[in-house]
């Protein structure tokens, strides 16, 4: 029973209280690139969940035999191969999905979240907990992606999954789309706002300031 709760915690803690994106700020490059619409965010979430869970399991299986000196290379090779194999598989059997997914392949391979979890957790734990941890982190990542993707699509285009939510002004409605929402910086703003909101509620996540702000204004040279 106690064992079961640990697995449950491993799975659920990365969702909010230890979310990889908002707490560890991992994997945000893809969070910026693929969140212009909810559909792409969802696709990326599913792909990353599969890759991260499998990679964590595989690396955990051989964890006792990976020489420390080249562990990062071994991890990258395994992750990259996994991503390619899955992409090839999708191109053969799920052609429609692969048309939107193939662009993200490079993003998954270089996603620091995958590396981060295999390096921090899968390398020291048996396969099953490692896979649970991978799944939990991937789901936490997906939550943030879905949130940002939804906000950007609704306010940038006035629609969700291609269905109009806010009627656009140039089509007789009242909503003027915010073009900024479709550009990369808006994802930064949304993520920043999300991190701020979460840390306002969960104050234990707030990090200590590394630098104290200066007391008085120095004259600019």
């Amino acid at each position, binding site marked *: 029973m106690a064992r079961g709760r640990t697995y449950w915690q491993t799975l659920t803690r990365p969702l909010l209280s230890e979310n990889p994106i908002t707490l560890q700020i991992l994997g945000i490059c893809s969070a910026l*690139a*693929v969140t*212009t*619409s909810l559909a*792409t965010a969802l696709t990326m979430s599913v792909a990353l969940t599969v890759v991260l869970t499998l990679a964590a399991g595989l690396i955990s299986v*051989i964890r*006792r*035999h*990976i*020489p*420390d*000196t*080249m562990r990062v*290379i*071994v991890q990258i*090779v*395994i992750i*990259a*191969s996994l991503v*390619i*194999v899955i992409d*090839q*598989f999708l*191109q*053969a*059997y799920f*052609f429609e999905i692969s048309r*939107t997914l*193939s*662009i993200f392949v490079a993003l998954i391979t270089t996603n620091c979240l995958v590396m981060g979890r295999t390096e921090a957790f899968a390398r020291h734990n048996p396969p099953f907990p490692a896979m649970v941890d991978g799944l939990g982190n991937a789901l936490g990542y997906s939550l943030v992606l879905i949130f940002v993707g939804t906000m950007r699509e609704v306010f940038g285009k006035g629609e969700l999954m291609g269905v109009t939510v806010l009627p656009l002004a140039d089509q007789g409605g009242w909503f003027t789309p915010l*073009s900024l929402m*479709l*550009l990369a910086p808006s994802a930064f703003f949304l993520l920043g706002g999300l991190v701020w909101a979460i840390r306002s509620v969960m104050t234990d996540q707030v990090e200590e300031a590394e630098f104290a702000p200066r007391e008085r204004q120095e004259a600019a040279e």
Partner: protein
Amino acid sequence: MAELNPLTAWRRFLALPNESRFKTVAMAFAVSAVCAVAVSGATVILRPIQTANRAAEEQARIEALVRGIPGMADLLEASGGELSTVVIDLESGRAAQDVSPADLEAALADPANWTALEPGEDLADLGQRPDVAQVYLLREGGEISLALLPISGQGYGGRIDAVLAMQGDMNTIAGISVTRHSETPGLGGRIEEDGWQASFPGTEVRGPDGDIRFAVARGKASSVYEVDGITGATRTSNAVTRMVRFWLGPEGYGPFIEAVQRGEF
């Protein structure tokens, strides 16, 4: 002394300290070998299915493109519902003598059938172009009423492949369909959306003086030679402009277009 039982040898290998040089090198080989086999295996085994998928996709897009052009469905029916496929020699603009659609693939695999492009004339950033190309023609009483011309060019994220439909005068665009691209989703990736492609039909390519004036505008199209731009995707828009200009110009289908306009085809 040599251990002959492979199972025991394997155990002894696993029992070596991870830091030993032999185990490090052996692990590197083992991991890369397994990964290489997995990747190449998946690629080789699945390739026939993928090729079939891609061919079906391109065919479906060409059909959708033809059907989307106003009045074209009736025309197709009148001509028996079939587009004729012709392989043309880009240099002369005439039908290629020794290449048929069936062995086009073999011809394109031969480097001798490709021409390197000078930097000045290589608008689409391709580096080289094939000497032969397969086009689809629709005839109405002997006259060509529609020509589908496959075009490609370097985009922002990778190569863009498209099919451009020209009306019988070979100067008015009847439609475009993007068959492959790797542009940023939501920005340049919108070139595959119908909404953007809808601004192509009716656009003219050459001005009265014969110069190519087609362009993807910044913002809304302001003349008959322009199509709407895509916000936030200037590089992709420019790539489409250069791609269309290259393929309709003298290095692309130019000779073929002139031959059709002279009524020689």
